[in-house]
């Protein structure tokens, strides 16, 4: 019974709850058991089973009274970057340690209002800085997948790796993530699930711990495209508390899924055919193109000429903003304070003790590119290139409706790999970063397995605020791909 319940999709569980076949309490208990069984993955920083059971009971009671929200009774996990009232929120950082917010992020508040149940807070790269979820104060999150003939633990990708791992392991129906340069999409690709980054401004950032404010976006990690549509519909919407959130209507994403892709113009950017791209990634991409064409989409070759500058631009803009956003963790008000008699020593010791190596590296890069004498050469130039990258997409979207690319240049790597090579790590985001810089919605869906038997993702990029078309295209691709593989630890 328990396996059956944890094997559901959001949509499937919703239907069975609606039919009265199961209760939220049963569903939640099954997931709590699965979450406990999945502890070796280190995917959860803070389990909240008591919370979950109370929320499930309350949901069942609401349902009995006829009040049913869009995610009523559905147990999900929350990336530990979202502030949750009364529940420890760490950003996977020693510097926040035991921080317990008195407030609830707008997006999680919307999820609870819609009836969702919180299972726990997921592991991640510290302050969302990373592509592996190795850089966490509680140690690395681990993928439920294994490479054929290789016993090493694999990374679930990052930074939303705990969310991806727990959903892939069938221990949460879905999870929230945040995506700054690929932090939802790359982990989704590594773990064989769907990850969506909506348009910048679509979801409120209020109450989500900031990494790079002009790039951070909340989004769902789910088992299928339909679930992404359901969950995004709940998470999205204007918030007057976030000046960058956009007051645009949120359509019924689920309703538009089945419109088909006949006549849809799908752009294939020449510049994404990067050097040293593994043949299997290229082959996957070609299969994706063929699937879309077979379903009546029009394939259009496009050029996004500034693509090669995206990664260096991102690694100037994001650290610059991060260096300022993380200045508030100074030992004065909350979180860690390392004792010292002199103020300056207290600051230095607190931040040395509190931040991990990758966060310190990015703060240093950020402070450097903003400093007097370097600002014009780095930050200002990066902003100009960012505009050019956005212009590339604007021009392309005159000719196409969506852009199709691979999600990541490789399948998942082993825990510990690339840990000492930041550049190799940064290259993971080569296909996801351009859409982030342009603020565009993008989605990764599982489309095949690598030679090692690991999931590979295809990536679709859409027009601003046109998540509906993006989801519709992703759904068509999902149907064509028919991805059914499960991690070895999960029995079908």
């Amino acid at each position, binding site marked *: 019974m328990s396996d059956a319940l944890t094997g559901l999709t959001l949509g499937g569980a919703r239907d069975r709850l609606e039919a009265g076949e199961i209760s939220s309490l049963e569903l939640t208990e099954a997931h709590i058991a699965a979450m406990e069984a999945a502890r070796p993955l280190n995917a959860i920083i803070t389990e909240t089973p008591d919370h979950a059971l109370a929320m499930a009971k309350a949901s069942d009671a609401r349902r009995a009274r006829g009040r049913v929200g869009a995610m009523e009774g559905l147990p999900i996990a929350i990336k530990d970057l979202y502030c949750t009232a009364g529940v420890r*929120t760490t950003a996977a950082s020693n510097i926040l340690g035991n921080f317990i*917010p008195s*407030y609830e992020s707008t997006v999680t508040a919307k999820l609870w209002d819609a009836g969702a149940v919180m299972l726990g807070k997921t592991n991640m790269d510290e302050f969302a800085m990373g592509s592996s979820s190795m850089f966490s104060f509680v140690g690395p999150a681990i993928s439920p997948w294994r490479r054929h003939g290789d016993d090493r633990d694999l990374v679930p990708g990052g930074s939303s790796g705990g969310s991806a791992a727990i959903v892939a392991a069938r221990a949460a129906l879905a999870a929230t993530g945040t995506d700054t340069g690929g932090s939802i999409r790359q982990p989704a690709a590594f773990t064989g699930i769907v990850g969506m980054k909506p348009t910048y401004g679509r979801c409120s950032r*209020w109450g989500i711990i900031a990494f790079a404010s002009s790039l951070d976006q909340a989004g769902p990690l789910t088992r299928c495209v339909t679930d992404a549509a359901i969950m995004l519909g709940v998470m999205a919407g204007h918030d*007057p508390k976030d000046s*960058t959130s956009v007051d645009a209507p949120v359509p019924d994403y689920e309703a538009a899924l089945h419109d088909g892709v006949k006549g849809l113009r799908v752009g294939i950017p020449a510049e994404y055919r990067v050097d040293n791209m593994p043949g299997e990634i290229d082959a996957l991409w070609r299969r994706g193109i063929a699937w879309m064409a077979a379903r009546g989409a029009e394939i259009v070759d496009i050029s996004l000429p500034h693509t090669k500058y995206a990664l260096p631009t991102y690694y100037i803009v994001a650290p610059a903003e991060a260096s300022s956003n993380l200045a508030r963790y100074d030992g004065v*008000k909350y979180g860690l304070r390392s004792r010292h008699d002199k103020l300056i020593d207290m600051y230095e010791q607190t931040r040395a003790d509190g931040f991990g190596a990758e966060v310190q590296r990015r703060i240093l890069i950020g402070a450097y590119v*903003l*400093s007097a004498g370097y600002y014009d050469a780095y930050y200002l130039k990066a902003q100009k290139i960012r505009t050019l990258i956005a212009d590339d997409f604007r021009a392309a979207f005159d000719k196409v409706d969506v852009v199709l690319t691979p999600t990541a240049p490789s399948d998942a790597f082993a825990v510990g790999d690339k840990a000492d090579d930041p550049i190799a790590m940064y290259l993971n985001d080569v296909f996801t970063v351009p859409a982030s810089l342009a603020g565009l919605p993008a989605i990764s869906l599982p489309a095949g397995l690598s030679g090692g038997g690991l999931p590979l993702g295809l990536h679709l990029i859409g027009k601003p605020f046109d998540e509906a078309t993006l989801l519709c295209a992703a759904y068509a691709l999902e149907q064509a791909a028919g991805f059914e593989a499960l991690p070895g630890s999960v029995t079908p």
Partner: protein
Amino acid sequence: MKGASGDWEVVIGCEVHCQVVSKSKLFSGASTAFGAKPNSQVSLVDAAMPGMLPVINAVCVEQAVRSGLALGAAINLVSVFDRKNYFYPDLPAGYQISQFTRPIVGQGKLRVDLVDGSSREIGITRLHLEQDAGKSIHDRDPRTTHVDLNRSGVALMEIVSEPDMRSSEEAGAFVTKLRSILRYIGSCDGNMEEGSLRCDVNVSVRRPGAELGTRTETKNVNSIRFIKRVVEIEARRQIEILEGGGKIDQETRLFDADRDETRSMRSKEESHDYRYFPDPDLLPLVLEQSWVDDIAKGLPELPDAKRARFMDDYGLTVADTDQLVAERGVADYFEAVAEGRDARTAANWVIHDLFGQLNHSDREIADSPVSAAALGGLLDLIADVTISGRTAKDVFAEMFSSGGEAAAIVEARGLGQISDAGEIEALVDELIADNPGQAAQFADNPKVIGWFMGRIMQATKGQANPGLVNALLRKKLGG
């Protein structure tokens, strides 16, 4: 300014930080009221809790635009908020949100009127919006510092002048005038004691006609008198250094009023690299020209216009006008008193009698126990000769202490003048008849009329209308 080796020119520029009149802070809903219990007016945003975001307060934007318009300055329809990054315990986010490259208000100018009757135009470089920091309190405990975040996030307008001032008087007059304008339009209460308006004073000296010298910046000077003093002290100090063969360090200094000196706070080398960059949590601030135009229409008459009008319409002197227009409350009070009455008399009473009593009792015009209508009532009693000017002074003193109406006081104390011509004529006739000798002298010595006058006043206890008595005496004696 004279030095041992000849003349020096003092060059002064000001950066004035003005707290915006607004119920809530620049980017949060927390209250801005002064004097509240420490840390009782702090929102999650003001304390820089994780994940909190700023949202611009439209009232503060409007106040900045009104201030810009009142300074005759260009309003920038697109402006940008930047982060100024530095670490300090009373700066919770580790950055201050300010406007660096694209302020909301651009260049303007301010006319200052000087004591010698001349006036000068001082350039305004810019006005920008920024957040105030909290307050570090070091004297509660010898080993710890306490932080009060009530001020954290309160909106400030920083108004920067060109280095156009050349004396302490001009610097004082500039800030006085600026304060007057902001108080007129209600964008800053100008309360320097509470820190609502404080000035960073930039001073350098040079030989007349030479290039600008190295400047020092003396921070947070909080009275007009101190601003003038800082200019004098800094100019003198710099001249002495230069004449002694030294050179001026570009540095930030503090004014110590008790010791009457400025002291170095930090040198240019120690100055922060603030790593300004546009705040990604806030979109550029975009204003509609029509909205700005509507605000311009809604501005009250400003001091310069009022000054010109008072001199033209009321025929007042420059000195009187300047006293009346400095505060909008005073000008309004004066106009209410002068309405339908003799303006110069009204001005005299406001400037000499009312101001005298207000100063004496340490009160503002808003708290005057004598309303404009009440003072007008008193002037009416003088005008219709119910009381003499002399009596009116006593009545006014009583009005000020009791808050009563002039007519009621005159009535109750029987102070009304005898202006009944018949009654006075009878007294005059009787006096002349009783003193034929004195009456006969009148032809040769008209001054004898003073003796008759005195007798009548004595007889009427000073309440006879002196003009009427005089006229009757001349008629009868001269007859």
